[in-house]
C-alpha cells in the first residue's frame, strides 16, 4: 500500500494556474525525487501536499495519507498530521534549530509534546535516537557547538521524533559542498531503510542520482518526465530533461587542454591567514595566457583569500607573487559569486557598462558587439541589476570585465547560485574567453566535477581535499 498518494494536485494564484495537475505516490522503502529548476513549482507541489501553501495560493486535488483522505483545497485538515504522519526537513537545518537549547532537549521536546511520551520516556528515547545517528555525547551541546552535519542529524531526529513515516526534504543540500552533500544523501537513505517514505525536492542532479528511486522532472509547473531515477538519468526521453542532464558537470565533455601561452603570474610559497588562523601555506602555481586554473576545497579553506592575494587586495603572510612586466593594475579582475551584489544597484546596467568603456578608452560599440557574443539582449541594458536574472547578470559581469581587456580573471564560485543549464552557459563562455582573449582564469568551485572538466590545472586547498574526488589531468598545487 502506498504511504502517500496525491492525485491531480494543482496550485493557482488568483485564478492563474502555476502548477498543472500532478499526481504522485510514495511507496515504503522507495524514495521519490522531484527535480526542477528555480521557479519550476517543485516546492509548491510539496507545500500543497503538506497544506502549507502561502495564503494567496490555492490548491486543488486529493491527498491520501495512510488511511486519511484529505482535500488539498482545505489545508486545515493537514494540520493534525504534521509531525505525526508527515515530517519536513527544513532547508538549511542548522538555522532551524533553537540556538538557546541543547541538542538532546530539542529532540526530547518533540517526543514529549508531539508524540505524547512521558518526560522520562521521551528523554530516554531522544538519547537513543541520537546514539542511533552517531551523535553519542553530543546531546548536551548547543547548536553552535555542533558541526553542520551534526546539526543536520539533530534536525532529522527532531523531525522524526513525532513518529512520522514520511519525510519531505526540501533542497536538503542547499549551500553544501560535495562531501557534505553525499553525507546528507546517505543520512536520508539510512532513514528510508527504517521503512519510511522519502520525498526529496532538489535541483541538484548529483543528489538525485545518489538518492535513486523514482523521479519526477518539473518545468514551469508541468511534469516533463517521470520514471525510475536511474533510467531517466541515463536515457532521458524529453529534450528538456536531456538538456538538464547534459548540463550536469558530471556529464560535460572534458575541455581540450589549452596550449601554454606566455606566463602572466608566478606565485611561490604563498601563505595567508585570517584572524590568526593559517588558511593555506606553501602554495606555488603559475598562470599562463589562455589557461584555466581550477581551485577546489571546502568552504572556509581560503579560496577567496587566495584570490584577494593574487588580485593584490590583501597581502600574503609569506611567499611572493611575481607579475609579468608591463601589466597594469586593471589587468587583474574578479568575477563574483553573487552578481547582483557586484553592480552599483542604483544605476542602469547600460550606464555602468558605458562608464567602464569610457574609463578604458573603449568605443561604446564594443559593448554592442560583445552583447550578442555573450547571448544577451540589448533591452537588458536599460534595467537595474536587481531586475535581471542571475545568469544574465553574470554574463553582463563577464562583459564588463572584457571591456577592460583583463589578463587574469579570478572567478569566485561564479555559478554556484545558477541553475545547471545556466551554469553550463556561463562556464562555456568563460572557457571561450580564456581562449579568445588570451587571459588566464582562476576558477573557484566547490564542485570537483566542474573543475575537473574545465580546468587545465587544479589546485586543491584545505584539509578535506584528500577526500574530494578530484580527477583532474594534473595537480600542480601542494596541499596544506
Amino acid at each position: 500500500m502506498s504511504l502517500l498518494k496525491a492525485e491531480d494536485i494543482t496550485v493557482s494564484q488568483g485564478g492563474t494556474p502555476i502548477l498543472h495537475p500532478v499526481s504522485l505516490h510514495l511507496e515504503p522503502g522507495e524514495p521519490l525525487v522531484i527535480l526542477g529548476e528555480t521557479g519550476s513549482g517543485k516546492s509548491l507541489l510539496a507545500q500543497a501536499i503538506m497544506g502549507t501553501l502561502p495564503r494567496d495560493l490555492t490548491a486543488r486535488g486529493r491527498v491520501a495519507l495512510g488511511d486519511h483522505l484529505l482535500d488539498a483545497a482545505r489545508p486545515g485538515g493537514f494540520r493534525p498530521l504534521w509531525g505525526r504522519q508527515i515530517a519536513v526537513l527544513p532547508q538549511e537545518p542548522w538555522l532551524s534549530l533553537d540556538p538557546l537549547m541543547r541538542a538532546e532537549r530539542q529532540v526530547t521536546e518533540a517526543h514529549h509534546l508531539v508524540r505524547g511520551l512521558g518526560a522520562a520516556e521521551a528523554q530516554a528515547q531522544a538519547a537513543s535516537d541520537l546514539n542511533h545517528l552517531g551523535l553519542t555525547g553530543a546531546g548536551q551541546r548547543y547548536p553552535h557547538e555542533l558541526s553542520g552535519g551534526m546539526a543536520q542529524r539533530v534536525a532529522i531526529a527532531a523531525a522524526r521524533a513525532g513518529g512520522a513515516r514520511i519525510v519531505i526534504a526540501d533542497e536538503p543540500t542547499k549551500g553544501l559542498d560535495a562531501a557534505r552533500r553525499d553525507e546528507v544523501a546517505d543520512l536520508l537513505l539510512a532513514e528510508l531503510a527504517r521503512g519510511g517514505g522519502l520525498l526529496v525536492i532538489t535541483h541538484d542532479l548529483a543528489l538525485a542520482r545518489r538518492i535513486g528511486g523514482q523521479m519526477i522532472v518539473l518545468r514551469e509547473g508541468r511534469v516533463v518526465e517521470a520514471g525510475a531515477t536511474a533510467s531517466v538519468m541515463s536515457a532521458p526521453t524529453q529534450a528538456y530533461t536531456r538538456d538538464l542532464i547534459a548540463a550536469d558537470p558530471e556529464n560535460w565533455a572534458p575541455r581540450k587542454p589549452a596550449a601554454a601561452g606566455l606566463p602572466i603570474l608566478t606565485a611561490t610559497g604563498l601563505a595567508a591567514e585570517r584572524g590568526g588562523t593559517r588558511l593555506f601555506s606553501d602554495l606555488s602555481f603559475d598562470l599562463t595566457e589562455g589557461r584555466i586554473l581550477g581551485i577546489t576545497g571546502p568552504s572556509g579553506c581560503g579560496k577567496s583569500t587566495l584570490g584577494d592575494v593574487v588580485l593584490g587586495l590583501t597581502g600574503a603572510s609569506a611567499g611572493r607573487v611575481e607579475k609579468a612586466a608591463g601589466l597594469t593594475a586593471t589587468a587583474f579582475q574578479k568575477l563574483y559569486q553573487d552578481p547582483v551584489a557586484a553592480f552599483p544597484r542604483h544605476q542602469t546596467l547600460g550606464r555602468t557598462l558605458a562608464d567602464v568603456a569610457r574609463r578604458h578608452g573603449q568605443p561604446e560599440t564594443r559593448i554592442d558587439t560583445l552583447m550578442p557574443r555573450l547571448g544577451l539582449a540589448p533591452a537588458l541594458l536599460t534595467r537595474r541589476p536587481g531586475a535581471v536574472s542571475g545568469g544574465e547578470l553574470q554574463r553582463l559581469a563577464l562583459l564588463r570585465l572584457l571591456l577592460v581587456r583583463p589578463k587574469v580573471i579570478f572567478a569566485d564560485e561564479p555559478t554556484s547560485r545558477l541553475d545547471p543549464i545556466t551554469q553550463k552557459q556561463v562556464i562555456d563562455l568563460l572557457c571561450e574567453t580564456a581562449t579568445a582573449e588570451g587571459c588566464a582564469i582562476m576558477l573557484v568551485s566547490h564542485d570537483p566535477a566542474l573543475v575537473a572538466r574545465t580546468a587545465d590545472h587544479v589546485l586543491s586547498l584545505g584539509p578535506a581535499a584528500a577526500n574530494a574526488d578530484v580527477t583532474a589531468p594534473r595537480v600542480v598545487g601542494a596541499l596544506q
Partner: protein
Amino acid sequence: MTDVVMIPRPAGHATRCTGGVLVAAVLIFSLIGPLAVPGDPFAQSLMKALSGAEPGAPLGYDHLGRSIFHRLAHALRLSPAIAIAAVLTAGLGGLVLGTWAAARGGWTDRILTTLADALLALPGLLLVLIVLAIVPGTALGFWAGLSLVLWVEFFRLSRAATHEVLASPAVQATRLLGFGPTYVFRTHIWPEIAPMMLTAAAFGTATAIMVIAALGFVHVGMRAPTPELGLMMVELLPYWREAPMALLSPVIATFALLLGLTLLAGSRET
C-alpha cells in the same frame, strides 16, 4: 539575495503629501502674505493694543499694537532661514567628515568619532547658548551653534552608511575596474546615503526651529523687538485671557511647520 524590493506604501505617500502641504502653506504665508497685505512688523500703535482683526492686520494687534500678521510672517522667515542655513552647513560638514572618516579609517576615524561622541554628550541647548555668548550677532550665533550641534547626526549617518558600502563587493569590483574615489562616491555612496540625508535634514530643520523658539521663549535667544516665534509667544502669554487668538497664532504656525517637517522626514523609508 541582498536586494530588497521597495514597495511604495500608500500610507507613506499620504503622510509625505500632508507634510509637504503643511510646510508649503506656512512658507507661502510668510513669503506672499506681506506682499498681499503690506504692513510693517515694527510699527506700534498703542491705541490698537490687543484689538481684533481688521483689513490692514488680518490677525489683529499685540500688546504694543503691532500687527501680528506681519510679525508672524517675519518670524516665519527668520527661523527657517537660520535653520536651513545651519542644516546645510552641518549636512555638508557631516557628509564630508563622515565619508572621509569611513574611507580613511584608523586614527582619522577614531579622532572624529571621539569628537562627535563628545559633542553628543553635551546638551544641545547648552552648546547653542555657549556659542551665542561667544559669537557676536544673534542670528550668526544661532547659525554657528546649531551647525555645531547638528553636524554630529549627519556625520554618524554618512560614516556608518559609507563604511557598509565601501566593504561591499560592488565597490571592490568598481575599484578593480580602475575607477577612483570620486566615481565610487558618485555611483555607490551618494545614492545610498542621499535619502537618509534628506530625512535627517528635515528632522534637523525641525530641531533647529524648535531650539530657536525655545531659547526665544526663555528670553536668551533673539532680542526684542525682533519678531521671533518663541519671543512672540512669551510676550503674548500674559494676555492669553484678553486676546487668546493673538497668543494662538504663533503657536499654531510653529506647530504646523514642525508637524509638516516631521511628517516629511518620518514618511521616508530609509
